[in-house]
């Protein structure tokens, strides 16, 4: 039978790890945002070799499981760092590095890929005539982007950004495989201690569903306040 008492008792304990989930999400996004802007620019401008490399990156990252990417980051980065530190004679113990850093990097890989797509498609969604009209009133290329294209692209991008944020939150639930203790990790730990796995995972289920529900409301609110105008077409 479902042990509802243990379930209720530990709900707060598990929810208390939401800050770690949030930290992972924000950290990964902070890495992903600048890269995705650069990558999207490279895709739109079609710089010979770089655009190819960006496409290759996007294809591989979008084509492999996030779990595999996490294993790679978690196994290989410490290994390479260790080799690097020992060869340069620095006395740094890689086990002193907080595993959350591997979490940031691993999650940012796929976040970058999806944000790149969002940035690229939202910029390309702005009608060509907007750019032409900008040039014809005498704006420079940079001014056209700053004044006309980027503000319009932003309103197209925001709902997609919202989806990416939700996806990133969901993928943080895999960080326990890199020994980061966030909501899911905590549920697993308490599950192990109480052997009440199901109850703990149901707790985690509720924590995620409710948390994401509020995040989505927040995103909708931001969307509304940023979008003052409706697109003409």
């Amino acid at each position: 039978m479902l042990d509802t008492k243990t379930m209720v008792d530990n709900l707060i304990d598990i929810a208390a790890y939401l800050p770690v989930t949030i930290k992972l999400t924000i950290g990964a996004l902070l890495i992903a945002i600048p890269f995705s802007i650069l990558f999207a620019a490279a895709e739109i401008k079609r710089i010979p070799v770089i655009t190819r490399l960006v496409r290759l990156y996007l294809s591989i990252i979008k084509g492999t499981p996030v779990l595999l990417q996490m294993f790679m980051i978690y196994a290989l980065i410490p290994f390479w760092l260790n080799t690097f530190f020992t060869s340069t004679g620095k006395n740094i113990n890689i086990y002193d590095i907080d595993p959350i850093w591997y979490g940031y990097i691993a999650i940012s890989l796929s976040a970058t890929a999806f944000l790149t797509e969002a940035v690229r498609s939202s910029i390309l969604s702005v009608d060509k005539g907007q750019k032409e009209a900008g040039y014809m009133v005498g704006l420079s290329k940079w001014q056209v982007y700053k004044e006309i294209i980027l503000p319009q692209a932003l309103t197209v991008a925001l709902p997609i950004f919202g989806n990416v944020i939700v996806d990133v939150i969901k993928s943080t639930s895999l960080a326990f495989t890199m020994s980061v203790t966030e909501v899911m990790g905590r549920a697993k730990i308490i599950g192990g201690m109480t052997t009440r796995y199901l109850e703990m995972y149901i707790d985690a289920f509720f924590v995620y569903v409710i948390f994401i529900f509020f995040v989505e409301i927040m995103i909708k609110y931001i969307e509304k306040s940023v979008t003052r105008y409706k697109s003409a077409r």
Partner: protein
Amino acid sequence: MRAFRWDMFTEFFVKILPYISVTLTYVVGSVLFGFFIGIGIAMLRLSKKRALQVIGSLYVTIFRSVPSVVLLFVIYYGLPMWVENSFGIILEDTDTIVYVIVTFSLLLGSSMSEIIRTSYLAVPKGQYEAAVMVGLTPFTAIRRIVFPQGFVVALPNFGNIFIFMIKEGALAYTIGLHDILGRGMYLGGLKANVYNLELYLALTFIYWPCTFILEKAFKMWEKSLRNKRKKEKIC
């Protein structure tokens, strides 16, 4: 740093390859059952009864927000308990893959319902009305006129669902299923995880072509459907 062992890479690659069939099994199974759930939920959301709409939206909201791994664990631990309590059947020897398929059918049901709903709404109402007015029954009108048009709209999204499923299904490893990733991790463990670089690369070169080919195949299918329709227009 040690040298990269190509022989290990090849060994992993060859030994993992047959397990594509396991991955494909749960991909096809989940997409299939997910599709049926999706139709059901889409019908709820399109129904005229307010209560049914609410149930439909609630389903979508919940299963859109839950991380796959959380649901997988809930199903893995909860399903046997629930079945035992309600039906008195003990599920001890059930194949792990069943839990994977149940989990992802539930999850895909939510995204499928959205795809089905939006592509249904994308077909102008006049198409259905015209079909009924030339004497087709409502069912035939949907089957012969509305469905083929909605299908073209839905196709790219179905492609994405398959790709999502190949990747996300890798979570099955966490409950011990030997699919592509699970088998790989098992083989890596047999070598005491010494050759993990080779292993991960082998896994990458199995997953990546799978999703890549699937993506291209769906694009081609979509293109051929659209071309066919263009030709019909000209005739």
